């Protein structure tokens, strides 16, 4: 809302946002387009886009005059690019939102998520020179930090449908980068009999700028989906800060490791599946993968998911009553993002400074949780490396209390897997068995060391 004085002036002159105006403030006169008010400037300030292109703010002063000045420049809409059929390999494109699917209101600078697929295509016209987009669907336009289980469920169903379409060689899903690695894990577990590559693609920079990284990611994602023989869900993003190549990271072994870098996504405890170049060259990097079957196969989505699960980080002074709270509230599973090899405070490590308060031991709470049927999974906040339930005394105590160390699984992947497994098992033993089975490459039995910090 503008201040009263400004409202009065605008109403008197019948001046609306977008009108071409002349503003007289003191001795100076300014010609330009009146921009809509955003909450960023004080309410007694008018925002104008001057004829020279700059946006400026002008404060109301007594005697300020605003007059309409000819008809404003028609601001054309965002261009759209129609899908053109071609004989290139076909894929399905599913839009779910994220920065890759944003556009900017060039006048105000506001960023909007309201883009449909044809607008997205206009920023990456090259995509249609790489693949034939057989089906295009806008699933949602959500910032991924607001994603919830229902988003995953709907997405898995649509991917399964698109992947079962015989002409589609694979599927590309555009997604926000914040929780991309959670989604990639969710898709990996929910999709059954996956026979084609699923590329999950996003952007760290916005499409309005020349340095938009989404282009390379989409193109490489398209190559992954159409040309590779890896029938797995993968996050396809820049492999370095340069625009040279992308990596396809196994969806259950990937994490966002930087807030803003183009190559924020890294494979953790695994080598990327492949290195993909913008000319279509695909260099396989990982000998372990699910190969595209020679016979067509129908992919389905099994989307049942237990939502009452949580992740808890362990740290000095972590109070186990937090776990008690979750158990009391009916949570059915908890992933402990434990320290190092999978430790929680126990007071029983053998060397004690005398300061440890026995009430801060997590063992009783873990025992209590397990007794009440809550599954307690243990992953490491170190992210890299394998957890253990035997190497130290208190690791064994944790195991004996019922905590289950999950090999080298990422905490985020463990969380997603736990939600899916709990909805599909009928007993604690079955849950444990499934959690420790390598369903979708989320466990790497061989860590050679060259995957560390790559």
């Amino acid at each position, binding site marked *: 809302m503008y201040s009263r004085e400004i409202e009065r002036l605008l109403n008197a002159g019948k001046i609306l946002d977008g009108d071409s105006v002349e503003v007289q403030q*003191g*001795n*100076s006169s*300014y010609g330009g387009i009146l921009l809509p008010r955003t909450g*960023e*400037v*004080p309410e007694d*300030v008018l*925002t104008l886009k*001057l*004829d*020279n*292109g*700059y*946006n*400026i*703010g*002008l*404060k109301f002063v007594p005697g300020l005059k605003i007059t309409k000045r000819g008809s404003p*420049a028609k*601001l*054309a*809409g*965002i*261009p759209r690019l129609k899908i053109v059929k071609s004989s290139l390999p076909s894929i399905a494109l599913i839009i779910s939102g994220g920065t890759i699917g944003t556009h*900017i209101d*060039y*006048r*105000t*600078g*506001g*960023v909007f998520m309201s883009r449909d697929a044809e607008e997205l295509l*206009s*920023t990456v016209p090259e995509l249609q020179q790489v693949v034939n987009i057989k089906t295009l669907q806008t699933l949602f336009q959500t910032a991924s930090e607001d994603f919830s289980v229902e988003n995953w469920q709907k997405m898995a169903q649509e991917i399964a449908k698109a992947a079962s379409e015989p002409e589609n060689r694979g599927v590309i899903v555009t997604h926000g980068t914040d929780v991309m690695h959670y989604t990639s894990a969710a898709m990996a577990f929910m999709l059954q009999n996956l026979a084609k590559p699923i590329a999950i693609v996003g952007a760290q*920079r*916005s*499409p*309005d*700028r*020349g*340095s*938009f990284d989404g*282009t*390379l990611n989409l193109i490489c994602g398209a190559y992954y989906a159409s040309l590779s023989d890896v029938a797995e869900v993968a996050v396809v993003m820049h492999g*370095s*800060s*340069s*625009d*040279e190549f992308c990596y396809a990271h196994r969806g259950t072994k990937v994490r966002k490791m930087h*807030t*803003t*870098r*183009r190559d924020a996504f890294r494979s953790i405890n695994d080598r990327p599946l492949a290195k993909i170049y913008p000319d279509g060259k695909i260099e396989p990097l990982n000998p372990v993968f699910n190969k595209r079957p020679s016979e067509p196969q129908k992919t389905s989505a099994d989307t049942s998911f237990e939502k009452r699960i949580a992740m808890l980080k362990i740290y000095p002074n972590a109070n186990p009553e937090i776990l008690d709270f979750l158990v009391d509230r009916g949570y059915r599973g908890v992933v402990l993002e434990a320290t190092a090899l999978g430790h929680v405070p126990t007071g029983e490590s053998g060397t004690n400074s005398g300061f440890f308060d026995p009430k801060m031991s997590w063992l009783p709470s873990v025992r209590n949780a397990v007794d009440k049927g809550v599954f307690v999974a243990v992953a490491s906040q170190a992210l890299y490396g394998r957890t253990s339930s035997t190497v130290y005394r208190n690791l064994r105590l944790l195991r004996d209390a019922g905590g289950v160390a999950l090999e080298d699984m990422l905490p985020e992947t463990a969380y997603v897997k736990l939600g899916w497994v709990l909805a599909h098992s009928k007993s604690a033993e079955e849950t444990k068995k499934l959690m420790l089975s390598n369903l979708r490459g989320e466990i790497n039995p061989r860590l050679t060391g060259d995957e560390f910090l790559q």
Partner: protein
Amino acid sequence: MGIELEQSNNSPSSIQKRRIIMDYVDLGFKCGIEIHQRLNTRKLFCECFFDPGKGETPLGAMRKITRRLRPVVGELGKVDPAAAFEALRKRKFTYLIDEDAVCAIEADEEPPHQLNVEALKTALVFSRMLSSRILDDVFVMRKTVIDGSAVSGFQRTALVAVNGTLSTSKGIIRIPTIAIEEESSGILEKKGDETVYRLDRQGIPLLEVATGPTLKDGAHAMEAAELIGQMLRSTGKVQRGLGSIRQDLNVSISQGARVEIKGVQELRLIPELIENEVQRQIGLLKIRSELQSRHMLLGEEHFGLHDLTRLFGNTSCKLIQGALARKESVFAIKLPSFLGLFKTQLMPSHSLGAEIAGYVGAASPAKGIIHSDEGLKEKYGFGEGEIAAIRKSLHMQETDLFILCIGSEDTCKAALQAAFERCMLLQKGVPEETRRAEGAISIFMRPLPGSARMYPETDLGPITISKEMVEDAEKSRPEPTEAKKEKYLKWGLNLQLAEKMVRSPNWDLFEKLVVASKAPPQLIAVTLLESLVSIKREGFATTELSEKTLALVFTFYSDSKITKAAIPELMKLLCKYPTKSIPEFVAQNGLSKLSSKELIALISNLEGTKEKKFAEIMRAHRLRVEAQELQKLLEGN
């Protein structure tokens, strides 16, 4: 008044003659300048600091990243034409990262931090120095740039003030805008499709000052540039050295068009540059009428690309021999009725042929063109037979002209297409464009960017400029030149030195040294304005002398540890070995001043007259003895 275009004479007297002939007012001459001055603060949107005095990091020691930038949609729903032009080249950009001066923000891997407060304050102060109206809210904008010089594909810029004024000898001129923006990265080299930039200077704050198009002529433009430059330097916040200030000119005549000339290196070249541009525009208009009189309407239908590679199997032209060895080709196009036009001198040493070559170079990797208005035999070693064969293949008339390009097929296509398009434009007159200053002439750089180029920086909010900030800026205005001069005169500088120092870019260094050491200001001034200049001329690297070093040298002098004569010698040595400790250096190099005791001892050890002793001691210990002191001691003896 008739306009004579001299076809080939570029001598100063002919320029003089042209000057007399051309009346700028009659021509509808318009000219403005735009000055970009680097500030010596931290970078505009991050905490990095670019130190121009720091030694050059070897290129091999720098990390690199490569990017490809794409054209994006401007506000009006269409791609910016300049951006589209660049995209045609599909170039790869490599950026070298010097970690001392570059962080993730320059590499477009982190969003910008808040606008540098010191830089903003400097902009506000300067705005008040020009009596301009500071805006109530300042918005940082993104200005689309995709020639690779801005890693993100845009340059951040913010308008700070409007409607300033500047007094000149030819009246008051308007300064419509004062903006603050970030410096772009520095181009290192361009190899075909790849351009290499260094990121260290990206993000340095630039103060942009623009005049209106009301400058009366070249001399007026030069004066305005000098005045603005001096005022900028008086803030004490400007960077010094090569590249720290850039001047761009805008020139037009009524029948011509607005042309931007970027990167004027020396102010004294401005009058000539402007004149040459006016010449060029007049020349283009003349060519247009000539084409009309030849009844030649050049259209798309006249474009015919011919592969003439096979004609040069036995050529003695070295250029083509080399190309054929590289499996490249020779392509040609014909320009009907264009005979002789490419010889037209648009500017000194710059024919229409050279002008067209400029467009070719900007649109393709081709290094140049060959055309039939040149001496094909003398210049390139073409054979008579080859020339005839070319003419035959192209079905040329006597009055036609051909253009050849040597290179890959793609390169030749792009090159000749660009040449042809520019030739078609000759019929329209003068196109609006951006050119690059090279000495006193200019070369085509790119089409003038359209207005659909700026949109708000979405990562930062607007900055409210409070009444207090404006008042502060008003109060912080630096001492005007006259007051400074009076101050220097009071300090003991003679009039000539005082006037020189006031205009010198080192005035603030001078004032700091006066305060830091207790040496006489006159001596410091002479050293800075004269001794340092001659030392530099002798080839010494005076940029190695930091403020701290100079202060120490002068302190040494005022502590009577060295003589006045020793100062230049000491400085020469310090240029070579800047990190040496001065006391050590002085002792090791026999520069320490002889004490009175030592002098007396010397005097007593010598035989002869006072004059003889004086001469003897001065000869042997010139740098260690103050003549006056020695004289006094000899008298006293």
